[in-house]
């Protein structure tokens, strides 16, 4: 049984007759100890979908799903109190902006021990010892003396390490990492990514890695879900998708990687922008930007279809291994 099962997850904003669907019928599963990358541009709904998994979408967002289960437990039927028992202990999350994600009014020690106090109890001294241990594990030098520091005294990289220490405090089985390195300096990004992957491997922890960066996915993830405008457009194993992308959008994303543009005059880009609330196309959402667009694409929405090896693609004319649309 998969650790996390998500089926037809939809998140809507704005009520009334015409709500905006930030996330539309997203489905994926995550096995124990597996790293799943979720890739997309900003506005593709990748962050919102992960917040929905955490139960952190607040009013006026509305979350629906035909199944949303963690370790076989249906998250939708849990009471808020039972749900909170899972969040922060079995399922933990780290965010994009480490500098604003720590509460400026409390010490690092307080914020780490808080999760321990809620989920594991123990004495004050035990929690403190555990916090020092955690800070050491995430590579903060002289951890014992750091407990009393306030977040504004830390750099971005240090803050993210503290966030990671907080997240792994209760030995979660699933870590949701929402763009964990985007806001950091380039030199720090690799360190934090390494730290996350080391912790993931040592602890056999499953990880949902949300990023706009395919290079990170290639390096870290086993499988990948590509999202566009709130929908899943393609999913499958990392080697398969990187070698033979079947969706034109995935292909364009890969082509835009600077690593793949060595020797080229200029970097590849995808012309156009992700459709917003009022310019959503009637047909395929990528139709206005797709180089292989056909008439059918403009009038009809393609469904997400199963392919070989648990792969899925949302396209009427998926690309063959040579990158040519099939008829």
């Amino acid at each position, binding site marked *: 049984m998969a650790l996390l099962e998500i089926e037809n997850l939809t998140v809507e904003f704005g009520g009334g007759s015409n709500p905006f669907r930030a996330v539309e019928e997203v489905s994926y599963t995550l096995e124990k100890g597996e790293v799943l990358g979720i890739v997309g541009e900003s506005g593709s709904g990748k962050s919102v979908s992960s917040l929905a998994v955490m139960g952190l979408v607040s009013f006026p967002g509305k979350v629906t799903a035909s199944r949303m289960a963690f370790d076989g437990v249906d998250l939708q039927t849990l009471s*808020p109190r039972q749900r909170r*028992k899972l*969040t*922060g202990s079995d399922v*933990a999350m780290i*965010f994009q902006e480490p500098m604003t*994600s*720590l509460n*400026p009014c409390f010490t690092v020690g307080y914020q780490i021990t*808080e999760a321990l106090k809620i989920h594991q109890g123990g004495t004050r001294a035990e929690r403190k010892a555990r916090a020092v241990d955690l800070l050491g594990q995430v590579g903060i030098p002289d951890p014992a003396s750091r407990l009393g520091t306030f977040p504004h005294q830390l750099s971005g990289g240090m803050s993210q390490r503290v966030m990671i220490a907080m997240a792994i405090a209760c030995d979660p089985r699933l870590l949701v990492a929402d763009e964990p390195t985007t806001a950091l300096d380039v030199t720090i990004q690799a360190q934090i990514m390494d730290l996350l992957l080391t912790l993931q491997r040592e602890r056999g922890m499953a990880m949902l890695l949300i990023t706009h960066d395919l290079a990170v996915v290639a390096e870290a993830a086993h499988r990948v879900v590509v999202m566009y405008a709130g929908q899943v457009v393609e999913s499958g194993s990392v080697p398969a998708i990187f070698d033979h992308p079947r969706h034109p959008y995935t292909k364009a994303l890969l082509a835009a990687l600077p690593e793949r543009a060595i020797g080229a005059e200029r970097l590849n880009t995808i012309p156009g922008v992700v459709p917003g609330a009022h310019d959503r196309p009637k047909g395929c959402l990528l139709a206005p930007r797709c180089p292989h667009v056909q008439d059918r694409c403009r009038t009809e929405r393609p469904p997400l279809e199963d392919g070989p090896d648990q792969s899925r693609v949302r396209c009427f004319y998926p690309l063959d291994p040579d990158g040519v649309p099939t008829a």
Partner: protein
Amino acid sequence: MISFVLRRALLVIPAFIGVTLLTFALVHLIPGDPVLMLAGERGISVERHAELMTQLGLDQPLWLQYATYLGNAIQGNLGKSIVTHRPVTEEFLTLFPATLELSFCAITFAILLGIPAGVLAAVKRGTILDHGVMVVSLTGYSMPIFWWGLLLIMLVSGILGWTPVSGRMDPTIWMDSVTGFMLIDSLLTKEPGAFSSAIRHLILPSLVVGTIPLAVIARMTRSAMLEVLGEDYVRTARAKGVSPLKVVMVHALRNALIPVITVIGLQTGVLLAGAILTETIFAWPGVGKWLVESIGRRDYPAVQGGILLIATVVILVNLLVDVLYGVVNPRIRYRR
């Protein structure tokens, strides 16, 4: 922390000098001859006039007069009341505990009611409760408090007969003044019935003086809470499995209190202005009533000294608030 306090304390000096300049200028802007004014309608001989001018130092250059005034003010010497012939500082200090007691009760009432109301409105944003809090607080903010005081006397004292109409203590109870604060004195002297009488006398005036601060605090708490509840660290707390109540009361409120404390500090001026209006209505023997009466009696040394002393209190309380602000908000403490 100490250097932070010292640096902030130094800023008091220009404000104080500014206020002394203002009060000094006020008296020197009075049209007409101050000596003739002192003399009243009886008139005065030319010799006596010159003598008084020298005695009051009015024949000296303006900057020297100011320097003398400032020097005296720093030593607490603000001249004597024309009416009572007692030193202004002494009169002020005798009456100030009454005003302080009233202001303290008023702000306590405003904080104890305003912060919970603001938090509740923010958490229940958009509901009837939120709208209710906002309408009531805007009404309080728009309240002419002298009328509000009269209205309460009419309803609570007149029709319901629950509270006394004026003063600080039943006239039948006599009590030695120890600290000048009726609540404390009544407990110290153990005079029967004095404490409850002091409280009953305090209720209406405190409510009146506290109305505008209450409205301001509730509105500020609400908007600060709304802002803080959207912050990333609130989401982090929720992601840790912190209960909604603790998210609001610990993680959000602690941050929202920072602007609220500033606003509470700014209420000192509002409280003292409120005291001026309210003390007159409730015959409350404090500095506000004294100041209004001094104006009526054209007792300029008392008016000048009273304004300077009240302004000084405001400046000092603002200093205290800034220091407190540094304690609550660690980011300020360490800023160079």
